[in-house]
Structure formats: structure tokens, C-alpha cells
């Protein structure tokens, strides 16, 4: 046994070290000090009064985040009973209509969650509704970021992370949809089997590797289960953390307005306002999904029955977020190549793998393409109003239109029966529409943006319509205008306008020059200070000549005056 070492009572090591007791404010000081002594909480937590701007469109990302949390919570509940096994069992549970029917354990356990576990059906339905909401909110959030230009420097990386989240969200949803092994999910899997098989060169190999042999085999559901509850949730969690960390680091963008600049951020403090608002909003989203789960049936798998490769329900459709791929698959001509004894199934590969690849690659690259075209290398923390970036907005709407056309094609049979036209006609129409409709959408959107710019300019120059019709001494009628506040006038005129690149010294390639000219083309130049002053002067003269100024407080649009303060 080791002999205790001789202790030197004078050793400084024995001194009881007490940290200085400089207590913080109030009752919290005690526990806060305890934690801080150990992990340096004050250094870690940083600024809990961090500023976040307020706008409804910033809630979309929050909805996506919260529905992910709801999916984690409800998903864990489901794993308690779900059996990811394709082994055959004979059903003997409470759902009488299926007694004695052979089915996979996965399907049987889904029935058991739905009929035997109290609250099981509710949680299944919440899980499925939350999945729908998750993808929908991510999509809407992505569109918000796109149309307001929030993806610009320095946020390009966060945009790419977002695209990663979006694409993985689709895969995650598909994997979950496949788990119950009902007739619809099996049909979806068979579709994936064909899709994977169509990949040139490696298709058959990929198919055999994924399914562990021939379709359907008995491995794919256990494997998808791993993907669904471990692999992708893990990746999503990691990416979401990075997404949020970057958001905090960059600070949220804000809408332009008086006092808001590229160097400041205006809004409410995280603590306590956003703790209450965002925390409260989580409960609202959760409450709404619970109510949806309670009142709206979704995926009633017991009505579809277990997967049977020789059956299909008429009008079988994937969940909505896969509809665009489904549509593309339906309308593509049946192109197949035969080279040196091989078959290249473009009719499946292009609309399936190709279209998804195109969508995600295009989205991921967009910030870099736009920055290259505009030559813009500055940081942006103020959002664009969509009208002030007409070409970007038009590109976005064109993209949405193309997506919508593909998505509609996914219901070509329904359209044909609903509108009593032939299926062939709908299909041929859609083949043209996916190319033509986006072009039309582009042109129309750009025009609308520019006419909205014109409206803004009118407002700045002539004020807003007062709704008061006045009659001049010589008998003419006109509507009096009230000047707008300097704050509004500032908001309407502060935006930078895209300019065509001019090669000053540096070489600019021809393609780039053309693209940048195209990008800047057609915009309405915003009113200059001189024009605004001129219009104000004109208004003042009118007022002198007896046109009653509606806002009697001041007779000229106050913009001109140096003392903007009293104009309010």
C-alpha cells in the first residue's frame, strides 16, 4: 500500500482558493456564478440582448425549424413501436378487416401504432403533417431568401447549406413515406427502383446494392429506416446548427427603412422579446400540427393495404413535394438509346435524376452566377424589394412557373378527366408549357416589377393619392396628393440599381458584358434629388394657386426642407 505523502501544511496548494465574490445583480447571481465558475458561461453566451429584426417573412424559416423539432419529437415516439422489418407475418391485431392477411412486420406495426397504441394514430398523423409543413416552410423560406436577395455576400455559404437542407428534406420525407410498407409506399419504392436502374453504366449495380438484390427483397426498409432516423436526421441536425450559427454570426438581414443601414441592425432584443416571441411561435406551430393531426386524416394506410407488387391504386401519387419529378417523368417522350449492346434510358434518367440535379445545382450556383453578372463584391445586409431587382425576380418567377408546370403534369390524368380533354392533348400541351410558360412568366414579371418601380417613383415625386377630388376655378377636376413622409421617401429611393458592367481598365468578357447589360436593362431610373425638389416646388406653386393642400400642416412636400423632423 502506498504511504500517504508527507504533507507540508504551509504549502500554497492547500490554501482554499475562493474566487472573488463580486455578485451580479439580483437573485440570479448565485446560480449564475456557480455555472460561470465552471464553464465561463458569460463568455459563451455572448450577447443575450442580440438584436433581431421583425418581419412576417422571417417567420418562414422559423416554421421550418420548429417542424423539424416536432418531427424529432414525434419520430422518437414512433420508433418505440415501429418494426422496420420486411419479414412476413399474418395480421392478428385489432383492425378486423385485415385479419389473417399476410403482410410485412413494418406494415403490421404501423397498423398497431394506428389502432392499438393510445395516441399512436395522432402522433403518426402529426408526424406526417409536420413533414409536409417542414418541406413547405423550407420551400417558402428559400423563396423569401431568393426574392429579397438575402443570399448575397456574405451569406452565400448559408444559402448553400440551405439548399443542402432542402434536398435532404426531400430524401428524408421520401424515406419516411416508404417505411410503413403499404401499397402506396411500395409503389413509390418500385418507382425508385426503376429510377435507380435507369442511371447509365451503374444503374443495375446501384439497384442491386440498394435493395440487396432484386426488388423488393427484404433489406430496403431496414436500410431506409437507418437513413430515416439516423443518417439524414443527423446530417440535418448538423447543417441546421451550422445554418443557425452563421445566422447569428452574420446577424439577420433587415428591410430598408429610415435609420436602417448596411452597418446597423434594428429590432428587438433576443432576451426577453424573442425568447417569448420565437418560443411562443414554436408552441403555436406545434399546436397547429397537433390540431391537424387530430382533425385531418393523412395517409390512412389501413385503407391501402399491405404492399402487393401486382396491385396499384388508381391515381396513386407521391407526397406533394415529389410531384414535379413525377410530372417530368410523365411528359417526357420515350427516348432510349442503344449503343454497343447497351440501353440508355433517358426517358427515366433525365426527368428523374437529371431534373433534381438541375434544380439543386442551379439553386446552389445562383448567388455566384448573379454576383459574376453584376460584378458586385460588396456585403449586403439590407434586403432588396423584389421589384428593385426585376431580372432576379423574373428569373425566380420563371423558375417557379417551370416547377409548377412540371408539378401540374404530375396530375395530367386528373386534369384530363376533370376538364374532359384527352390525356394525350394534356401531355403534349405540358411538353410545350414547361418551356414556354417560364418565358412568358419572365417577361410579365419583369414588366410588373418595372411598373411597380414607376408607381414608387410617382409616389416619391407626387405624393400619395388622397382620395379627395378638387375642382379648380377653371372647372377641371383633379385628385389632390398628400406628400409622403421623408421616411417612406427614403425607403423608396435608397435601393442600389443594377448597372451594366463597363470595362474600365479591367477586361470584361463579351458574355459577361452582355449578361450584365441584360440584367440591368429596362429599369426605371429612380428619381434624382433634383427631380424630387422640382416636383416639390411644383406642388408648392399649385398650393399657392389655391389648390387646397389636404395636409394643411405644410404646403409643400416636406422632403425638400432640411428639417425633416417636423414633417411627420
Amino acid at each position, binding site marked *: 500500500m502506498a504511504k500517504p505523502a508527507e504533507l507540508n501544511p504551509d504549502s500554497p496548494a492547500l490554501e482554499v482558493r475562493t474566487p472573488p465574490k463580486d455578485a451580479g445583480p439580483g437573485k440570479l447571481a448565485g446560480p449564475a456564478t456557480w455555472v460561470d465558475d465552471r464553464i465561463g458561461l458569460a463568455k459563451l453566451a455572448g450577447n443575450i440582448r442580440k438584436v433581431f429584426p421583425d418581419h412576417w417573412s422571417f417567420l418562414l424559416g422559423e416554421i421550418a425549424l420548429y417542424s423539424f423539432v416536432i418531427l424529432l419529437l414525434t419520430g422518437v415516439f414512433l420508433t418505440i413501436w415501429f418494426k422496420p422489418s420486411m419479414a412476413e407475418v399474418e395480421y392478428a391485431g385489432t383492425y378486423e378487416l385485415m385479419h389473417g392477411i399476410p403482410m410485412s412486420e413494418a406494415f403490421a406495426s404501423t397498423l398497431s401504432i394506428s389502432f392499438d397504441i393510445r395516441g399512436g394514430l395522432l402522433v403518426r398523423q402529426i408526424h406526417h403533417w409536420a413533414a409536409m409543413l417542414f418541406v413547405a416552410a423550407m420551400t417558402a423560406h428559400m423563396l423569401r431568401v431568393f426574392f429579397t436577395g438575402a443570399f448575397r455576400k456574405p451569406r452565400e455559404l448559408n444559402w448553400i447549406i440551405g439548399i443542402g437542407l432542402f434536398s435532404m428534406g426531400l430524401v428524408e420525407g421520401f424515406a419516411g413515406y416508404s417505411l410503413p410498407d403499404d401499397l402506396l409506399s411500395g409503389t413509390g419504392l418500385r418507382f425508385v427502383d426503376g429510377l435507380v436502374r435507369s442511371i447509365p453504366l451503374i444503374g443495375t449495380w446501384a439497384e442491386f446494392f440498394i435493395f440487396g438484390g432484386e426488388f423488393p427483397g427484404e433489406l430496403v426498409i431496414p436500410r431506409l429506416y437507418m437513413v430515416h432516423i439516423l443518417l439524414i436526421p443527423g446530417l440535418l441536425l448538423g447543417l441546421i446548427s451550422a445554418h443557425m450559427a452563421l445566422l447569428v454570426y452574420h446577424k439577420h438581414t433587415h428591410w430598408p427603412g429610415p435609420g436602417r443601414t448596411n452597418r446597423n441592425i434594428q429590432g428587438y432584443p433576443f432576451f426577453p422579446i424573442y425568447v417569448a416571441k420565437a418560443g411562443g411561435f414554436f*408552441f403555436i406551430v406545434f399546436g397547429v400540427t397537433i390540431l391537424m393531426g387530430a382533425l385531418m386524416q393523412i395517409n390512412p394506410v389501413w385503407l391501402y393495404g399491405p404492399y402487393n407488387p401486382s396491385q396499384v391504386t388508381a391515381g396513386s401519387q407521391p407526397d406533394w413535394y415529389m410531384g414535379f419529378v413525377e410530372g417530368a417523368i410523365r411528359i417526357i417522350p420515350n427516348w432510349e438509346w442503344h449503343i454497343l449492346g447497351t440501353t440508355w434510358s433517358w426517358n427515366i434518367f433525365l426527368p428523374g435524376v437529371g431534373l433534381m440535379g438541375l434544380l439543386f445545382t442551379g439553386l446552389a450556383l445562383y448567388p455566384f452566377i448573379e454576383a459574376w453578372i453584376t460584378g458586385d463584391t460588396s456585403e449586403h445586409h439590407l434586403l432588396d424589394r423584389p421589384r428593385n431587382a426585376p431580372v432576379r425576380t423574373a428569373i425566380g418567377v420563371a423558375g417557379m412557373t417551370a416547377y409548377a408546370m412540371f408539378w401540374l403534369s404530375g396530375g395530367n390524368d386528373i386534369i384530363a378527366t376533370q376538364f374532359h380533354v384527352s390525356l394525350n392533348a394534356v401531355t403534349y400541351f405540358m411538353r410545350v408549357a414547361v418551356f414556354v410558360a417560364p418565358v412568358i412568366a419572365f417577361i410579365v414579371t419583369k414588366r410588373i416589377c418595372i411598373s411597380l418601380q414607376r408607381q414608387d417613383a410617382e409616389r416619391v415625386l407626387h405624393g400619395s393619392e388622397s382620395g379627395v377630388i378638387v375642382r379648380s376655378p377653371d372647372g377641371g377636376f383633379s385628385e389632390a396628393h398628400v406628400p409622403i413622409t421623408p421616411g417612406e421617401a*427614403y425607403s423608396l429611393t435608397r435601393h442600389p440599381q443594377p448597372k451594366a458592367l463597363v470595362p474600365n481598365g479591367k477586361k470584361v468578357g463579351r458574355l459577361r458584358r452582355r449578361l450584365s447589360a441584360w440584367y440591368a436593362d429596362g429599369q426605371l431610373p429612380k428619381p434624382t434629388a433634383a427631380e424630387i425638389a422640382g416636383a416639390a416646388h411644383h406642388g408648392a406653386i399649385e398650393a399657392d394657386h389655391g389648390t387646397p393642400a389636404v395636409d394643411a400642416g405644410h404646403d409643400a412636400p416636406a422632403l425638400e426642407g432640411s428639417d425633416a423632423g417636423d414633417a411627420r
Partner: protein
Amino acid sequence: MNDPQTDLPVPDPGLEEHPPRFTDVDDAAADRAYKQIVGMLAAVPVLVVAFLVVYFAVPRDAELVLFGANLKMQTTLLGLTAGVATLLIGISAIHWARMLMSDEEIVGDRHGAASPPEARERVLTDLETGIEASGIRRRKLLGTGMAGALGMMALPAVVSLADMGPWPTAELRAKTIEKTIWAEGVHLVNDVTFTRLKATELVVGQLVNAQPETLQEYHGAALQQQKAKASIIVVRMDPNSIRIPESRRDWQVDGILCYSKICTHVGCPISLWEQQTHHLLCPCHQSTFDLGNSGVVVFGPAARALPQLPITTDAEGYLVARSDFTVPVGPSYFERDSSKDFQEGDR
């Protein structure tokens, strides 16, 4: 941080003044908001108790008719109580934030995303010092060797996935995706009742979903795999109204023809039969096949004709297969040239 070049025709008037809220100036209004919030929070325990009562007292199979819809009572009531309770927590928190918490907007500074130049400088110097200290500059092979070694380790990681599935070599393909359990003499049976099909019992225009009689020997995954390939449809058409090519004269019995039910597009079971035109439509992506013309594609994304199963009758007049399918069923795949499958105009 450099500002984007912006010309400002109107100068920035600065932050707008903050108008006080109703609850800031009117104590009675603030008290009302306070009561509302506390009231909502007080409803939560009530709803939680209701949830527990439902959980233990409402039988699982009780049904509830609400707005004409037949709802499962337990699911609906559990969801209603929990959902409304959750919603109330959320609404009260937001109400609190909007009505009673100070709503002074505050302004924070932004700094460019980039680190200050000194910091960059320092990290670069540190990096430089570190690299120097590692000796990698003088002994170059250290770096290359390490990178190469790490790179090579990707190989075992990737290669150990090679057993994810059997390799679809020509030999295995011939036993799996190129073969079904149809064979000479296998009876065609109805796919629900598994009774044999008698040629004389089929009427013109009729379509029957069928399976090989031998399917009953399979169970579980093997059953699903075989069914995914062997499912067929048997149709009887008027022999005078269809085209039967020379090579397929004896694949049919008096206008009774048999085709794979598995779509050559991505493999859905095809089901929609149009008697008049002899067209068979796939419900998944609407590929349409002409069963009166050897199953060629007349519309849609499928690129190959539907494989036809050669059939005949046995001594008692029951339909039997003459062989397996002559080409693989289901979607095309890379390793096989499908252009030699039956095409419009083949004889």
C-alpha cells in the same frame, strides 16, 4: 466594410420615433392584457386534465361524427386537448411579448463578416510558424506521404460496401431480373382465387389478372420478388380485330393473349383496360400499350413493348405457359440492348 455604391436622392431621416402602445399609456389596457395571458395559462392545466381523462376513459374504437366526418374519438379528443393547450401556451407568450414586454426597438452595430486584418495577419503568421515547426518544408515526403496514406484509406472504406448486394453479373442477371417462374406447362391461375383459367370460360373483351400456379410455393420476400415479375394479364379479343404477327401465331389461344402486367417504364402493375381500343393504360405515368398489336407502346414514357407470354392449353383446356417470357419484364437496364424487343412492324 464597404457600402454598396448607392446614391441617395433622399437623405436618411434616421430612426422613426417610437409610438407608445395602448398598454403603455393605459393601465387598464395593460391589466386586461395581463388577465388575458394569465387566463390562457390557467386553461392549460384544465386541458391537460381533460387529456388524461380521455387517455384513460375513452375506448380506442369509439367513433365520433364531427361535421359529417367519421373521426376516431380518442385520436380527435387527445389531439384537441393537447393541441389547444399547446396553442394557448404559444399565444399567451406572444401576447405577453407584444403587450407587456418593453417594445423599445434597439439598434446594434454590424461588423463585416471578415476578420480584422491584424487577426488574419496573426493567424497566417501562426500558420507559418506551425508549418515551419512541423518540419514539413524540409522533409517534403512527410506531407505527400500523409496525404497519400489518408487518401488510400478511403479505399477500404468504400470497398467494404461492396457486399451491400449481390453483384449483377451476367450470370446473376440471368437468374434474377431476366427470369420469372413462368415455364413450360405452368398453369395460369386467377390472382385472387388461384383457380386455373379455362380457355372456353373467357369471353371476348374480358381481362383477368393472373399469376403462375407455382407462385403459391413462395413466401415472404421471395414471394414479393417473384410476384413483382411474374404478374400477368390475360385478355380475350376477337382474333379478327387484332394483329397477330407470324412469329407469335402459336403464342395465343383463339384470341386469348397473355402479357406481363409489369410496366416496361418503371415497373408499376398496369391495370386500366380499354376494351374498345385494346389499349392498356398504366396508372402511374399513363404509358399505353396496344394489346391487339403485340403490346407495342402507343403513348407515354415507356420505351419498350409489353412482353408477351406464349401460352397454350393443356389436355383439359386450361391455359398453360409454353415457356418463360422471351425477354425480361419490367424497366430496361443498361446491360441489355432492348432495341431487339418486339417493335411495331416486326413479323
